[in-house]
């Protein structure tokens, strides 16, 4: 952490390097560029994230976040830079989730994935390239985050999430995002998030369709969609239907919007509402979920 003396020095630097930028709409913003942020970080011995935070607090917008201002504003950006988001899985959903979180300016991303890239991943997993085949997805994703946004601190954890380690791996997160590929893991992560008192942004895909929902600790959550854990098979029709290139990104993009909304407090999270996007049919539908699993005595005896 910066001391008061470096604080003063950082503020002086920011003041010195700030410029005025006119946004396309005509609004003027005091801004600071990446070169200046790096220079201040180096001179003051603090991270670029700390420089960006200090600038935002002074009302100076790092240029890289300028196009975020119209939606989340300076205060929203400060909250994001201070936030910790856990992403479980760095494959189809996870790859895009991580990419967008870094661009949006999340301060810390915990990336959990025990798998390595294979050729079959290349059609849809954003972090995979021919050159990265055989490499651990979490490590590749963390390196990519650094290239996109050096202010984002990415922590790769090459581990399989289990009932035993979930609490420990997720305890620092403020929000957890679902990039998993099977139902039992989703139920155990939901349980860990519930115990930790943090929201979980659930998403799944198969073929041209996908669905998502945000689950707060007090919500009924996955049971309201899938019933009790253990009643359904581990995997769904995606084992045959596969996933074309754009489906993971379609759902991941919505999941990231949910994360931003949760952290900034802006908008209306998709709680107790299952959003189903079907690219093949060109439809987006919402099903309002009700908490209890049927049958209930009330329903059986009602008529």
């Amino acid at each position: 952490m910066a001391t008061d003396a470096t604080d003063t020095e950082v503020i002086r630097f920011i003041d010195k390097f700030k410029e005025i930028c006119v946004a396309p709409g005509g609004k003027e913003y005091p801004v600071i560029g990446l070169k200046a942020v790096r220079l201040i970080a180096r001179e003051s011995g603090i991270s670029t994230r700390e420089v960006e935070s200090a600038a935002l607090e002074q009302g100076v917008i790092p240029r890289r976040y300028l196009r975020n201002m119209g939606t989340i504003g300076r205060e929203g950006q400060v909250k994001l830079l201070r936030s910790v988001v856990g992403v479980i899985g760095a494959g189809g959903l996870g790859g895009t989730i991580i990419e967008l979180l870094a661009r949006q300016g999340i301060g810390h991303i915990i990336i959990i994935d025990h798998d390595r890239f294979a050729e079959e991943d290349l059609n849809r997993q954003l972090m995979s390239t021919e050159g990265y085949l055989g490499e651990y997805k979490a490590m590749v994703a963390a390196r990519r985050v650094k290239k996109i946004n050096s202010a984002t601190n990415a922590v790769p954890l090459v581990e399989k999430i289990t009932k035993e380690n979930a609490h420990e791996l997720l305890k620092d997160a403020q929000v957890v995002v679902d990039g998993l590929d099977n139902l039992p893991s989703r139920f155990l992560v939901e349980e860990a998030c519930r115990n930790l008192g943090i929201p979980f942004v659930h998403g799944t895909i198969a073929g041209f369709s996908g669905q998502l929902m945000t689950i707060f600790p007090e919500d009924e959550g996955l049971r309201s969609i899938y019933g009790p854990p253990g009643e359904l098979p581990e995997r769904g029709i995606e084992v045959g239907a596969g996933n074309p290139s754009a489906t993971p990104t379609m759902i991941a993009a919505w999941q990231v919007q949910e994360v931003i909304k949760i952290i900034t407090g802006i908008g209306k999270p998709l709680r107790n509402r299952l959003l189903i996007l079907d690219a093949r049919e060109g439809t987006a539908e919402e099903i309002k979920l009700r908490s209890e699993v049927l049958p209930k005595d009330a329903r059986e005896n009602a008529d």
Partner: protein
Amino acid sequence: MASITVKFYAFWRAYLGLDTLSLEAADVGQVMAQVEEKFGAQLRAKLQALGIQADQEIQDYCLLLLNGHNVSRQSLRQIKLRGGDVLHIFPLAAGG
């Protein structure tokens, strides 16, 4: 007997070429029996074409929500229907 609406989603919709269906039934079990009779063979053939071992009743590959309440597949006959109920039927998707 109650007049209800069945809504299909995702793959079921694509395969059946229809998104809603109106039918008469007394309980969810009867709905699924009608769905099985009308579409079971067709859907199983589609699943098998994708390499999915599909030799059970179609309800075993479905998630069911009655007016937004999850329906346990073990108790379909116990859930009596009322006029205007909407049963959402979608295939299980767990990819990521």
